[in-house]
């Protein structure tokens, strides 16, 4: 026991720089690596980043608060439609469009939270699915706003900061998305360590006990849903901005389910888990579906089973515990 504790203490105190700076550098390097590995497929990486936001947002409500939801893509999709419409209406500045996505996502998140956070367990899960299906059905019906099954097309935002035009190769889109991701991720790293983040983790552990220390659990969960919605909204906005279209798939149940899978693979309850889970899953999916278009779903299913069997808490917690075991042997016995 004390071994591991000492480790945790040392790990945080021995870093000669703030952990956020490490995250920033690591992500910038990973982004550069992506650019080098997929130079002809930046559009794929850019889509990937949009989904990373969705998985991060799910982590905030599911990983940090323990809310069971299969309706997170509704928030993502509503924000994407809002951004699409704003752009078609003439608001073409990409940063302003991100703002639109954030606000739309936050509002949709708050609304979901009011319903979903009221309940627990299976009723909660069912309600989240219902909200998602309702949004999907409305997206299909309200074709004047969403383009129905054809989708909302022709979204063409102006240059970023008035300088960088979105180019055919997707370089601007990629760099823009990556920069936004790094900024949001670093902010979230600080956010989840905040007193509010700590309270949310406590609520996840035992919501009655949290009330017994004076916490207003329901309002706090709604608030977290709103914040999570803003994060999902950024993802929806980036997806609309970069792809130029918003389709029904962005609000689909499958997207919500896949988001949960990515979170579980990486490790719910840590931001790194959400980040790495979503990146690994999507790259794997990308390669496998290209290599074997007939059996890639089977292969993906098998991979999932293996991960859940050997790393039930996710890849990131597994990696941390492996490092914990190996590091003391390598690093002396101080």
């Amino acid at each position, binding site marked *: 026991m004390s071994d591991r504790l000492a480790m945790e203490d040392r790990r945080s105190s021995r870093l000669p720089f703030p952990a956020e700076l490490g995250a920033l550098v690591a992500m910038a390097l990973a982004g550069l690596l992506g650019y080098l590995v997929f130079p002809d497929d930046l559009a794929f990486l850019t889509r990937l980043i949009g989904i990373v936001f969705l998985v991060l947002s799910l982590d905030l409500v599911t990983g940090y608060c323990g809310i069971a939801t299969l309706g997170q893509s509704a928030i993502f999709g509503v924000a994407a439609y809002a951004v699409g419409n704003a752009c078609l209406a003439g608001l073409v500045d990409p940063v302003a469009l991100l703002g639109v996505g954030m606000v739309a996502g936050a509002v949709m998140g708050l609304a979901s939270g009011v319903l979903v956070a009221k309940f627990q367990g299976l009723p909660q899960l069912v309600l989240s699915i219902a909200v998602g299906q309702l949004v999907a059905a409305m997206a299909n019906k309200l074709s004047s706003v969403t383009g129905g099954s054809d989708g909302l097309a022709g979204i063409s935002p102006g240059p970023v900061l008035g300088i960088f035009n979105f180019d055919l190769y997707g370089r601007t889109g990629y760099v823009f998305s990556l920069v936004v991701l790094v900024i949001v991720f670093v902010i979230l790293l600080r956010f989840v*360590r905040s*007193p509010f983040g700590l309270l949310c983790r*406590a609520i*996840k552990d035992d919501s009655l*006990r949290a009330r*017994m220390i004076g916490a207003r659990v329901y309002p706090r969960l709604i608030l977290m849903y709103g914040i999570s919605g803003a994060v999902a909204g950024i993802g929806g906005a980036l997806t609309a901005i970069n792809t130029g279209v918003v389709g029904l798939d962005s609000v689909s149940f499958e997207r919500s389910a896949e988001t949960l899978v990515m979170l579980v693979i990486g490790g719910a309850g840590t931001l790194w888990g959400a980040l790495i889970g979503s990146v690994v899953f999507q790259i794997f999916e990308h390669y496998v579906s290209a290599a074997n278009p007939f059996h890639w779903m089977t292969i993906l299913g098998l991979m999932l089973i293996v991960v859940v069997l050997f790393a039930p808490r996710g890849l990131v917690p597994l990696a941390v515990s492996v490092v914990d075991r190996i590091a003391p042997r390598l690093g002396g016995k101080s």
Partner: protein
Amino acid sequence: MTAPLLELRDVCKSFGGIRVNDGVSFVVREGDRIALIGPNGAGKTTLVNVISGGLDVSQGSILLGGHDITDFSIPQRVDAGLIRTFQITRLFTNLTVAENVALAVMQKKGITRKFFSSWIDRPNIRDQWMQILGLLGIAHLAAARVSQLAYGQQRLLDLALGLALEPKVLILDEPAAGVPSDESGRIIEAIDRLPPKIAVMMIEHDMDLVFKFAKRVLVLANGRLIFEGDPSAVTHDSEVRRAYLGTYADGRHTS
């Protein structure tokens, strides 16, 4: 005379027609040290649940500082200074010991609405949780996860959460149960060091501890308060004896 800190008026609680608390009335004043004892199943924990808001009363009312709080939510009661601990520990098991106590400290200060950066190690917060952990002799476990603690240590941490909330009335549900006897002295010690105005009510089976701690004893049997008075008198009371010998425990008494 000022209103008592806590007052129960004819509090009843039934589960499916069975009265588990039956017309319980008593007052708690500033500085009180009350032991609530009674056989297993007497309804002591249920009474704590009713007082803390975890359960609604079936009948009767609860007053805090003269104000009726019968309809208050759990957090409202906590804000008003009515704090309880749990017979079966309830802690935030995936947080560290320090995080548990710091969270209670920050909740009390209204800091859990801060959305940015960790506050646990800020001096004014850190001093408080360190002091409470030190008082209970578990400061060396600050970085441990709750799930790594021995049960007795968890009991002490449950008490630490209560202390961190700066109670006016502190209700402890068998705080020493499961705590090794050499550590249970810590509990009495910690209570002794509380500001004298705080009222403490403790449910306890260990009579040595009761005599060390209590200035007044309440005895609950079959949901009814059958004795209220001096600790020295309780062992001589014939009704209390009968309660512990089981006449009450089978639930068929008439009186």
